[in-house]
């Protein structure tokens, strides 16, 4: 062996065990820590809530403890027919969101795929995006009354503009080379759209839907609080009249849980449908 390629004796490393540190920029932590920390924040929250309720900083009627809220939740379901309200709310979100998707998905894809379609719709969509949906409530109440149509309309205009914009952006991000690959293999415009643009954008479209479904829940409560005879928000406004703070809090709890469940379902759908992706993003 030549001098230049002589191997050097390995130096003994002092301590090769990686130290686990709590605060390390962007480095991963063990799964058990993640779970413990995730549970800990909730325990802390309920503890502070309970202590605040006991301490008497507010009258007990305005700040019931977690135990009282859970009891109220049980009573609501068991005796007050709350399940009906929940179903009405879920139906309103699902139906209005399906309508919004039926418009936004094809329109967003076409806007992202063709500059001409974008040039036509984009100034219109962008303008509407800056109008807060709740500002339409007085108008919607006059047009549709206090019934379902008004709620559905508010939920629809609350998400549609953002949904269109997000879907158009995700479609625009489809790599040009994927499109050109299909084109140079003889793909027609329609074939390229159907076999490349749509499947390439679809995973991100589902993510956009997940994000906007969460927004839809926000508008649902606004719609039901302003005027409704059924739904979770309506129950909460009834409870306010009778100073049932525990029921109002139970309503908040249910809305949060439903939001979580929907988010989880769409996340699971995404993972199942797009197993071919590198990793879940």
């Amino acid at each position, binding site marked *: 062996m030549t001098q230049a390629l002589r191997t050097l004796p390995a130096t003994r490393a002092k301590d090769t065990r990686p130290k686990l540190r709590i605060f390390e920029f962007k480095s991963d932590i063990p799964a058990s820590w993640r779970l413990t920390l995730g549970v800990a924040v909730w325990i802390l929250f309920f503890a502070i809530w309970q202590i605040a309720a006991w301490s008497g900083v507010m009258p007990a009627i305005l700040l019931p403890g977690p135990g009282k809220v859970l009891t109220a939740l049980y009573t609501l379901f068991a005796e007050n027919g709350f399940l009906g309200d929940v179903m009405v709310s879920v139906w309103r979100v699902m139906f209005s969101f399906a309508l919004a998707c039926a418009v936004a998905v094809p329109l967003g894809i076409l806007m992202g795929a063709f500059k001409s379609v974008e040039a036509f719709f984009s100034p219109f969509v962008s303008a509407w995006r800056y109008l807060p949906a709740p500002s339409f409530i007085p108008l919607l109440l006059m047009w549709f009354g206090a019934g379902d149509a008004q709620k559905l309309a508010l939920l629809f205009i609350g998400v549609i503009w953002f949904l269109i914009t997000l879907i158009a952006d995700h479609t625009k991000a489809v*790599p040009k080379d994927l499109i050109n690959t299909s084109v140079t293999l003889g793909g027609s415009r329609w074939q390229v759209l159907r076999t490349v643009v749509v499947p390439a954008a679809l995973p991100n479209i589902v993510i956009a839907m997940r994000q906007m479904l969460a927004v839809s829940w926000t508008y649902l409560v606004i719609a039901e609080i302003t005027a409704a005879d059924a739904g979770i928000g309506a129950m909460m406004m009834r409870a306010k009249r009778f100073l049932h703070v525990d029921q109002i809090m139970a309503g908040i709890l249910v809305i949060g849980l439903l939001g979580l469940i929907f988010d989880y379902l769409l996340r699971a759908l995404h993972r199942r449908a797009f197993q071919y992706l590198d990793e879940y993003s």
Partner: protein
Amino acid sequence: MQSSTILSVQNVCKTFPTRGGGVEALRDVSFSVARNELCVLLGPSGCGKSTLLNIVAGLHTPTSGTLSLEGRPIHGPARERGMVFQSYTSFPWLTVLENVEYGVKLNGIPKAERRERALHYIGLVHLTKFRDSYPKTLSGGMKQRVAIARTLANAPEILLMDEPYGALDAETRWHMQEMLLDIMRTTQTTILLVTHDIQEAIFLADRIVFLSAHPGRLKTILELDFKKGKEIRSKEDLVELSGYPECEREIMQLMRGEAKQEEDA
């Protein structure tokens, strides 16, 4: 030679419009590619070689000049001019087999024939074991092999390759280059390939079309006479060939001359 011409490029100019009046990418470029030939477009960066390939593919239109394939004028992209890109273009939602079948399916070939053709070309690029895998499980070199098989399965009259191995590491690149020569030998394909890698150009090319930069013009066409009649299967075969060092030096000087002009300008 003239009779076997498959692709003809005549007086092609391309100026990209910009606010300040336009950038001239190609000026009066003419060359032709013969049937079953591997022709390499080589030149320094900014010589417009990728633009020229895109024009042949029909993805760009020339500002002036004419192009024809088998005597038919080229207007827009078509199946007869299949292209392999530098970026990985395997469709991630399709398996290897589905990817290779993709183009054949677009063109309405019945299922049985489609399957048979796809499997043949998957075998040719040594991916039979991975026919049911999704691209996420494949390495960069394997993804490029999928792209090559997909284009070949579509039976193009000429295969266009835009720096197909540019993103691969050195060792993978050798294997891919050797495999491409193997495919050339067994399938009677005509290839027009863009690269900036001098050794790759010499190894693969029957003929090198050398472009100079700013704007891209035809500098010279190099016939690689020292390779004629020699059996070259590996990189080692090439570097041992007499005439190789001289050829490499000549092209290096062409490249360097270009770089020098750039500095002087």
